[in-house]
C-alpha cells in the first residue's frame, strides 16, 4: 500500500499535538490513517453531458473561476477524467453526491501519497 506517513503533514501535526501518543507511526490505527488522508474527487468523461454544462457545474459547486472550471472540464474531455477537488473523505463524499445530483459521473478515491 505504501503508506508514507512522514509526507502527510496533517498527520504529523496531529501526532505532534497529541502528547499521550507514542511518537511511533506504527501505533496509529488503520482508521486514523484513513481519517487523516485526503481524498480526490474525480469527474469522468461521458458522451452526453455538454462541455458547457460540466464547466457550469464545476463553477457552481466549487466556486471556481470560468478559467479554472474550463481547464478542468477540458482535462475531463481530453484525458477521460480529472481530479476536480481534494478534501477530507466526508466532504469529498458530499461533493460527489452533489455532482451526481447534477448528473455528472463522479467518484472519490484516496489520494496517493
Amino acid at each position, binding site marked *: 500500500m505504501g503508506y508514507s506517513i512522514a509526507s502527510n503533514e496533517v498527520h504529523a501535526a496531529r501526532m505532534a499535538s497529541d502528547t499521550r501518543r507514542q511518537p511511533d507511526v506504527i501505533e496509529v490505527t488503520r482508521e486514523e490513517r484513513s481519517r487523516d488522508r485526503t481524498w480526490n474527487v474525480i469527474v469522468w468523461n461521458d*458522451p*452526453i453531458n455538454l462541455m458547457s454544462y460540466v464547466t457550469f457545474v464545476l463553477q457552481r459547486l466549487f466556486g471556481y473561476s470560468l478559467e479554472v472550471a474550463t481547464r478542468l472540464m477540458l482535462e475531463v474531455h481530453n484525458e477521460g477524467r480529472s481530479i476536480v477537488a481534494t478534501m477530507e473523505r466526508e466532504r469529498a463524499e458530499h461533493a460527489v*453526491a452533489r455532482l*451526481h*445530483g447534477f448528473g455528472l459521473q463522479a467518484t472519490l*478515491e484516496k489520494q496517493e501519497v
Partner: protein
Amino acid sequence: MFRVRKGPRGSVILELEHEEALILRTLPDRIRKLLEAPDFGDRVVQRLFPRAYKDPSKDAEFRELLSKDLIARKLEGAAALEKALDEATEEDRDSVVTLTPATFDLVLACINDARLIIGTKLDITEDTWKADVDPEDPDAFELALLHYLSVLEENLIVAVGQGGGGKE
C-alpha cells in the same frame, strides 16, 4: 424556437413556443416514472445514479446512505420544471417562463436528467453529435428531442453567464 434572456432580480426568462412548452411538460412525468420504483439493474437508472467508489462494498454503502437524497433532488427538479411551466404567462401563443435564482439550478439539472435518460437509451456516443438526425430513423424523434434539449441547456447556461446568475 425558444428565446432566453435575463430577467429582473437575477432571474432568467425563457420564451417557449406552445409546442415546445408541451414537450417540456412531458419531461417531469417521464423522470418521475423512472424514479418511482427505481430498478438499479436498468442502465438508464444506473446512469442517473453513478458509482461513487470503485470498491463495490463502499459503493453500496454510499448508495444506501445517499440514494434517497439523490432521488429527492431529482424529484425536486422535476417539480420545479413542472411548476415553472405551469406558472408561465401566455403571450400570443408563447409561454413565458420565469426561472428564479432559487429554481434555475434545479430546472437545469432536470433538463439534463432528461438528456441523460434519452442519451443512455439511445446509446449516444461522441460521434452522435456530429451526425444529422435521419428522419427515417425510428429514434428520430428522441434524437431530435435530445438535440433540442442540448441547445436549450446551452442557452440557459449562456444566459446566466460566468459563475453568476441562477444563485445570487
